[in-house]
């Protein structure tokens, strides 16, 4: 069990560093055991260095930087234990346009081997979808799937 945790920790850490660099277009990040001598109980720290900035723990990043780093960690967890389908509910909400573009670039590489379903309000995110489902509630309290618009005219 100590072995299983250490194995997961090492693998996720590895994925996390790489995904962070992809989403931030540089910089570096890693997970660290707060007390390496107590791997069975100790908590986990997240150290991030966005490009051009100094390394710091995740809580000292800006709001959008924190969200992008946490997303990198969740996606690292997915890479470690992949599934045929990845379902993301509004993970792009705190990101500015440049970060959303980098995020969608990462999604497209994921989509080569995984089905991706995303709930989003962001028009940049919508642009990378092959198919768009609209949900409405014209009749109060009753949801209706109104369209499956294929973006076949997109560049």
């Amino acid at each position, binding site marked *: 069990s100590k072995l299983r*945790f250490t*194995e*997961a*920790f090492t693998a*996720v850490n590895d994925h996390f560093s790489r995904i962070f660099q992809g989403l931030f277009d540089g910089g570096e990040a890693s*997970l660290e055991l*707060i007390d390496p001598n107590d791997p069975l109980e*100790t*908590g*986990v720290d*997240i150290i991030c260095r966005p490009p051009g900035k100094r390394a710091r723990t995740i809580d000292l990043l800006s709001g959008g930087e*924190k*969200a992008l780093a*946490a*997303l990198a*960690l*969740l*996606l690292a*967890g*997915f890479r*470690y*234990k*992949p*599934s*045929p*389908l990845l*379902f*993301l*509910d*509004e*993970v792009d909400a705190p990101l500015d346009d440049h970060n959303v573009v980098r995020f969608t670039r990462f*999604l*497209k590489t994921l*989509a*080569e081997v995984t*089905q*991706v*379903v*995303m*709930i*989003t*309000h962001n028009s940049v*995110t*919508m642009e*990378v*979808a092959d*198919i*768009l*489902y*609209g*949900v*409405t*509630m014209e*009749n*109060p*309290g*009753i*949801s*209706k*799937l109104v369209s499956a618009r294929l973006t076949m005219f997109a560049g």
Partner: protein
Amino acid sequence: IRFKKLILQGFKSFPDTTELVFNENICAIVGPNGCGKSNILDALRWVLGEQGPSQLRARAMADIIFNGSANRKPVGMTEITLVIDCPAGTLPLAYEEIEITRRLYRSGESEYQINRVPCRLKDITDLFLDTGIGRGAYALIEQGRVDALVTARPDERRTFLEQIA
């Protein structure tokens, strides 16, 4: 393995039969606040075997059954069907396409089916044990999960890793 279709009926804000086709590589679900998007993720989680109401943003399991609106009375049951392509050997079943059906009545009675043949909940969750879709995997990232990880304490982050291990 390829997820093909999710069919909702009587589930939360979807009283009428609604079919979501997952054929494409990237599918986006859009619409205004409160229109029912996250309910679709709850339906997927539930048909895959989720047993905790709080994981479905509900207080009691019966809360997931459509409970009425200004113009519509509540219904007595909900049914979700998930259709999956599973070429030879990808799942521990002999079929190349399977339909998983889960039903819940207001009485609390549950029914489970694989290809319309009654089965137990365990038969459904066992299907996915090695696929990364089961509990402890990070394939279904609900609204607020990223923020929860941002505000998590070091011991809570450890729990995240322990669940994956």
